[in-house]
């Protein structure tokens, strides 16, 4: 139940990829027929990915994952000219791939405004609008948050971007496959996605780049991906991403209803059986598969470990930051109280989860929280 961290590769995706590892192993840039097969797979995959988000084939660039997509979008727009000082607007709850790229860009002399979120984790539109300056070139606001699942008002932000003639990037790594994602509906110029979050393989992702958006590459080499992302194309990965994306689109309707039912039932039982608990994030503007609870007097890693011993995988804070002992920047940003902030778990469901699993999870959660509180609270001997 840690599907926001990563997902197993779907068997249908695996089947699609397999031939490209062995028989059809060519280099898409080669002229000979082995290479031509690869070139066809590349082009077909690009259309599939494009179609799933309402884009055109030429607007899709394959990358090595969500992190690189975010980096190309941000580093690609901001000037590298010495002394050129440009401004980005982003939010305090972005993924480290955006936040750390922003601090790198600040180090290069650029400026960044980190717009706050309200107590439910939604970006304040007024603050976005007020943050616009003369030298602002880019707004980057994530579509859905990876920890608390809140869905940001990207469409409304697109209005602000358009009015001020700014590029708009959105990190849709968590929303693709969970809620409808359409680049024209959202009004974004760039959009990041990652394959391994949607039952595709790891090490591959994509960046949507609206026609007319001028980007500089981050890494340099051969002319692959219009020079924006050189390196021999990872054809099996690309084929896998395309299959995963198109399966996700196909299944979106049924899967999201299924996951939302499970999630809502989980939330109800947790509140019914455990005291001193918070649901972090927004009650309705959130991904259908995400629940993020904070339990008072319980520490996240310990909770995680006990759930793990019961065969249940969840995460605390974001998987990416779990090695540090700091509390999550997202939970801090929504102003969660100190006695709750360390006791948070993210439960992110997948299409294959069942109601029985939810019942089991609720039972184990109840026992575990009780046990850890018994160890921790002086009040409970």
């Amino acid at each position, binding site marked *: 139940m840690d599907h926001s961290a990563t997902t197993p590769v779907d068997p249908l995706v695996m089947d699609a990829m397999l031939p490209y590892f062995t028989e059809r192993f060519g280099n898409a840039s080669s002229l000979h027929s082995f290479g031509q097969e690869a070139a066809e797979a590349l082009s077909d995959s690009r259309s599939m990915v494009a179609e799933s988000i309402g884009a055109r084939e030429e607007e899709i660039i394959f990358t090595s994952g969500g992190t690189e997509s975010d980096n190309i979008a941000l580093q690609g727009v901001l000037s590298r000219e010495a002394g050129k000082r440009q401004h980005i607007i982003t939010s305090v709850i972005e993924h480290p791939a955006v936040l750390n790229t922003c601090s790198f860009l600040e180090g290069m002399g650029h400026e960044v405004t980190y717009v706050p979120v309200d107590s439910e984790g939604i970006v304040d539109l007024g603050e976005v609008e007020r943050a616009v300056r003369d030298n602002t070139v880019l707004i980057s606001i994530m579509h859905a948050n990876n920890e608390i699942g809140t869905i940001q008002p990207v469409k409304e932000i697109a209005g602000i971007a358009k009015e001020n003639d700014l590029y708009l990037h959105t990190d849709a790594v968590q929303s693709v496959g969970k809620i409808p994602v359409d680049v024209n509906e959202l009004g974004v110029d760039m959009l990041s996605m990652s394959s391994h979050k949607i039952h595709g393989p790891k090490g591959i992702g994509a960046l949507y780049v609206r026609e007319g958006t001028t980007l500089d590459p981050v890494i340099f080499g051969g002319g692959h991906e219009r020079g924006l992302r050189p390196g021999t194309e990872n054809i099996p990965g690309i084929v896998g991403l395309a299959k995963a994306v198109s399966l996700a689109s196909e299944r979106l309707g049924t899967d999201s209803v299924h996951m939302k039912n499970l999630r809502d039932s989980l939330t109800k039982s947790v509140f019914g059986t455990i005291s001193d608990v918070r649901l972090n994030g927004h009650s309705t503007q959130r991904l259908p598969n995400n629940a993020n609870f904070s339990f008072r007097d319980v*520490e996240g890693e310990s909770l995680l*470990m006990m759930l793990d011993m019961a065969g249940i995988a969840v995460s605390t804070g974001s998987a990416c930051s779990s090695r540090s002992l700091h*509390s999550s920047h997202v939970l801090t940003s929504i102003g969660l109280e*100190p006695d709750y902030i*360390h006791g948070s778990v993210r439960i992110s469901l997948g299409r294959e989860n069942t109601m029985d699993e939810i019942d089991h999870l609720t039972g184990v959660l109840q026992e575990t929280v009780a046990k850890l509180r018994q*160890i*921790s609270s002086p009040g409970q*001997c």
Partner: protein
Amino acid sequence: MYSRKTIEEFTNPKNVGVIEDADGVGEVGSTVDGDVITMYVKVKDDVLTDVKFKTFGCVVAISTSTMVTQLAKGKTIEEALAISNEDVQEALGGLPEGKGRCSGFALDALHKAIEDYRNKKA
């Protein structure tokens, strides 16, 4: 990755609890930092006849807490003060890299409890 022993101790911690009439109490950490360890000692003829703990914290915080109580219980104060961070880690079958730092907290709490006992006695 945690050792089998660490996970065992974490899952079934011994000496959890409050000693209501403790001779010494020591607390380290704060809720804000994410780890609070409280040690309670009962002392008779310079021997720690009982040691208990309450810990809000991560796997290392809990497993070192229970291990410290087990190592200290029945020892003289001098012997208990001689228990080192390495002793605790060894008894737990080693701790993952980067987690060694936390492992000292439980010992610190024990030392504070002994100090508290000495202060009270003095």
